[in-house]
Every structure is written in structure tokens, then in C-alpha cells.
């Protein structure tokens, strides 16, 4: 059976980009395609691989995440538009990725509700569904300090997907939330059993219980089979591997909303800092890229956790003058928005920057403005400063590093 299939395929083609190897199988030697990045002299003279069950990227493309022990970062500099391929979505886990059997999965909703209920994955999928494109950004998404940093290293903890699931408000009709309930607890089923308290108003606004990402089931690293989606809110609140929602009348003060995801502002510690403020970055040109004098289309992404991007301005003279960049339509609320600006570079050293304004009128600040507003003990969460790139005479592009020590 197997031999027949392979020989038919090898007759019709099935040779990969360049190499066809003789492979020993149980039924003798057959030709088998092998993927390689060595192109043939002339691709029109070689029949390529036939259709397969699951595709792969071109062997010439090698976009990868940058993992550490606790997170991995999206290669934003490689993105031509705003959807992040699911396997390049950033990761942040507190105790690794759990393996959850979708057939045993249950979401429990209880507490201040009329009828405590549990929903299987099948149940969740039967409810009227909604699809929404939005970003998820980690609240600790800022690094600086060296010239040789890529967009991925500076702020690769933001990614965007098209999410599908059921509005949380739809499920809440079933359980009947007590109108006196003001907060709910969301709990994951990873080894950290991660928990966050969320105001009930968000549940009735735009919170979703999602099971699909970019048209397929959510990736394990993103919460398979089900995660909470809170558009525009700090990544940690979008609890993955969601197993339980409990409704109550006060926050639970979990470790993730007290010891972590809080930060000093002046003499105080800011808590329950949910919305991600507006931010933008030029991703082309950026380190370690090189450019030539002449026309350069500056490209980047901008977003706001408070709504739509209103405008993006680009400066090519170190922030003295600002010009309006083109926004790629459609501009979606709480979503990465692609911007482009055509620049003629005269070959002299300069700095290029971008600055977003969102629909609330909030203007992306500099790091200095954030320091001025938050004081010398400023913590490391919710930093969204303007990023400046230095373009040197040889065309090399470098981050303009800034001084910042986080506590």
C-alpha cells in the first residue's frame, strides 16, 4: 500500500526544491522528496513536491521567536502585516504549557450567580460565536540599554491574532450573574493555577471566551483549548487554559495582581492597571538592517488598548518635525495597525521615530515623559515609550538606547 503510494507520488513529481533521495523502505528503494534550501538551477525544469497534509514555510524563511526561560518574543521586524502567525505568537507562562484533553475540558462558572454551571468545549462551541482581531501585549514589554537591539528584543511581547469564541456576556445570560457582583476571578489550569480578578463591567463589555486563533484551534502555548480574551488589557489578565470563573463582590488580591503587575508611581504602587496605553514602533528600517540613500518606505505598527489608532506621526530628523504616516485600512479597535511613510534619505546620519495618538487623544510619550510622570522609582510595567533608531552614514540602523533600571 505504502510503496504504491510513494512510487505514484515519485512518478508524478514529489521532488522537493532540489534534492531527491533514494530511501530504503520495506518495499524497496524509492525516490523521496527532501526539503532543502538549495535551489535548482532552473525550477521550471524540476517537478516540485505534491500536495501534502500540512504545509511548512519556505526553507528560505527563518523567522523565529526568541525564547528565554519564562517567555518567547515575536519577531516583529519580520511582519509585513498585522496578523502574527500562530506559531510566532509571543509566549509567557508561569509554569509551562499544560496538556489538556479537549474531551475532558470543562469551564466552571459559579459564585454570585443564580445557577452555577459547567460547560464542555462542545457546549461552548454551540453558542453564537464572534470573531475579533486584537493584540495581546504583556504588561512587562519594554527593554532598552544597548544599540544592537531588534524590535523583537525591545518589545516582542506583543502579537495579534484573529480570535473566535463566545462573548462572555452570552454565557452570563445562562448563569444569571447577581447584579451586586462587581469582580470575577479567572483561573487557569496550568501548574501555576494562575488567577486574576477582573471587574464585572469588562465581562459585559467585550470579554470573550475563545477557542480559536487565526481560524484553527488555539495553540497550546496560547491556552488550548480555551482562554479568556480581554481586548486591550494587559496580557496576564487574558488567562490561558481557563478552567473557572467565580463571581464575587471584591477582588481576590491574587499574587499576579499584588506582588506582580503592580508598579511604583511616585510614593505609591499602582494596582489594577488594566488597559495597555497607545504605542508604536518603526520595524523597518531597524537593527540589524541596512539601508541605502534614496527612497525608503518606513514601516511600523501602532496600537492602543483604549480603542483605535487615530494617527501615527513619523519624524526623520530626531523629533524636530513630524509627518503623518499612512494607516493601513481597516483600522480596528484595540488592534495592531500597520503604518507606512515614504522617506527620501539624503545619506546623512539621522534619527527616525514614530509616535501614535489614539482615539482618546492620548499621545505616546517619551521615556523621559514617563519618568517625569512616575518618578525616579518608576517600575517596569506599562512602559510604552517612543523608540528612536539612529541611521548612520554607512546605512546601518541602531537603537538609540536609553537609561533605565527597573526595580
Amino acid at each position, binding site marked *: 500500500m505504502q510503496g504504491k503510494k510513494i512510487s505514484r507520488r515519485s512518478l508524478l513529481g514529489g521532488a522537493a526544491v532540489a534534492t531527491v533521495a533514494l530511501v530504503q523502505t520495506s518495499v524497496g528503494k524509492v525516490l523521496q522528496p527532501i526539503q532543502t534550501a538549495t535551489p535548482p538551477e532552473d525550477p521550471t525544469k524540476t517537478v516540485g513536491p505534491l500536495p501534502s497534509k500540512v504545509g511548512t514555510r519556505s526553507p528560505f524563511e527563518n523567522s523565529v521567536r526568541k525564547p528565554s526561560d519564562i517567555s518567547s518574543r515575536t519577531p516583529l521586524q519580520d511582519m509585513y502585516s498585522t496578523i502574527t502567525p500562530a506559531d510566532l505568537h509571543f509566549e509567557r507562562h508561569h509554569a509551562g504549557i499544560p496538556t489538556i484533553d479537549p474531551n475532558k475540558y470543562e469551564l*466552571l462558572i459559579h459564585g454570585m450567580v443564580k445557577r452555577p*454551571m459547567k460547560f464542555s468545549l462542545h457546549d461552548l462551541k454551540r453558542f453564537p460565536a464572534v470573531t475579533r482581531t486584537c493584540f495581546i501585549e504583556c504588561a512587562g514589554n519594554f527593554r532598552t540599554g544597548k544599540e544592537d537591539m531588534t524590535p523583537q528584543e525591545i518589545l516582542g511581547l506583543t502579537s495579534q491574532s484573529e480570535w473566535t469564541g463566545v462573548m462572555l456576556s452570552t454565557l452570563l445570560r445562562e448563569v*444569571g450573574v447577581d447584579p451586586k457582583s462587581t469582580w470575577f476571578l479567572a483561573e487557569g489550569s496550568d501548574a501555576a*493555577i494562575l488567577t486574576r480578578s477582573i471587574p464585572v463591567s469588562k465581562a459585559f463589555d467585550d470579554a470573550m471566551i475563545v477557542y480559536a486563533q487565526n481560524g484553527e484551534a488555539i495553540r497550546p502555548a496560547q491556552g488550548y483549548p480555551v482562554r479568556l480574551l480581554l481586548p486591550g488589557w494587559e496580557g496576564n489578565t487574558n488567562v490561558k487554559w481557563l478552567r473557572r470563573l*467565580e463571581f464575587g463582590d471584591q477582588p481576590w488580591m491574587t499574587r499576579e495582581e*499584588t506582588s506582580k503587575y503592580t508598579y511604583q508611581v511616585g510614593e505609591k504602587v499602582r494596582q489594577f492597571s488594566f488597559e495597555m496605553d497607545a504605542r508604536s514602533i518603526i520595524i523597518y528600517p531597524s537593527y540589524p538592517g541596512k539601508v541605502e540613500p534614496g527612497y525608503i518606505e518606513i514601516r511600523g505598527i501602532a496600537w492602543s488598548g483604549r480603542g483605535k489608532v487615530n494617527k501615527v506621526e513619523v519624524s526623520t530628523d530626531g523629533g524636530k518635525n513630524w509627518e503623518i504616516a499612512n494607516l493601513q485600512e481597516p483600522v480596528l479597535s484595540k488592534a495592531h495597525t500597520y503604518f507606512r511613510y515614504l522617506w527620501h534619505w539624503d545619506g546623512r546620519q539621522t534619527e527616525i521615530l514614530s509616535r501614535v495618538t489614539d482615539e*482618546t487623544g492620548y499621545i505616546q510619550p517619551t521615556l523621559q515623559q514617563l519618568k517625569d*510622570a*512616575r518618578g525616579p522609582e518608576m517600575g517596569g510595567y506599562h512602559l510604552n515609550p517612543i523608540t528612536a533608531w539612529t541611521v548612520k552614514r554607512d546605512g546601518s540602523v541602531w537603537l538609540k538606547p536609553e537609561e533605565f533600571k527597573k526595580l
Partner: protein
Amino acid sequence: MIRWINDNFKTGIAVFTLLAVFGCGHNSQKDWPDSFGYGKTASKADIIAKDIDVRPDGVGLPKGAGRIDTGALIFAEKCAMCHGVGGKLVKGQKLPAPALVSDTNFVKRKGNTVGNYWPYATTLFDYVRRSMPYNAPGSLTNQEVYDITAYLLYANGVIKKGATINAQTLPKVVMPARKYFVNDDRRGGNEVR
């Protein structure tokens, strides 16, 4: 089921009003039934199996009381290999986990620990029980969690030797950094906060 739908009719109206107030414009819900009927009622046992959280008012705390001395022994055996001897940062030594013990001085702190940063003592019980030890989460008994909680509060200088830590007293422990915590005051618009 039918009886429940009737029972729930009033709540349904309340929820619809809320939806109108908060403006959920994703679905045209005019043709929706009061209930889709998907999902099952959760039993008490279903809830007890998963409801492990502890609130600042003490709801969720089990019976028992923490012993500082025993907590110190358990910490040395099950926690110190990652969090350092006595939960403290040792100069020049890189720990695989954050230091947990220093003092109660928020203003002069060099890093965040239980004593100088955590605003609620109940968080310690809740977090250790659900997540620690990192290499064997969920392996501690309630008694062990109480003992460790008492020990870590004592080691940080939050409670005195001889203090009783149980379901009544833990919520009443005033954490030194509590007074510094304020709610987010950012609200969009043309200002930097």
C-alpha cells in the same frame, strides 16, 4: 430545566439591561432564547473540587493554625533550594527563584519581597497552596501551607514569635506595604500618568 428558565426570567431581564448599558454590539440578540440550554448545572462537588481561592477577608481559608518553627523546617526542606537559605538573597549567588524574605521597609527596599511589598497576607496562603513548590505544585497539605505562611510572615518581620496564624487572624494581619497601594488612575486622553 424549564423551571430554572422561569426562575431566571427576571435575572435575564437584568442582564439584558446591563448589556444595553455596556453596549455589547457584537450580536443581534433579538431572536435569542432566554437560555440556549447548553451546559450543565454544576454540583457542590464540582465547585469544591476547584474552588481553592482565598480572599483578603479570609473566605476560603481552611481550618488549622500555622506554627513558625515547623514552617522554618518545611521551608528549609522544600523551598530553600530555589528561594535561598531563609528565603534570602545571598550576595553573588544567583537563585532560580525570587527572594521572599527581607524586612518591612517599603521605601528603602532593593527588591520586592513579602514583608516590604505584598499588600495582603492572605495572598501568601493562596499562592503557595496553588503554585508552590514549583517542582511539585499542589503537594502541600493545608497544615504545611499554614506553617510556611506563618514562618514567612515571621521571617519578614511582619508578625512576632508566638503570633497565631489561622483563618481568623491571617486576614487581620496588616501588611506594612498595604498603605502604598492605589488603584490605577490612568484614563486615556492627552496626559501621561
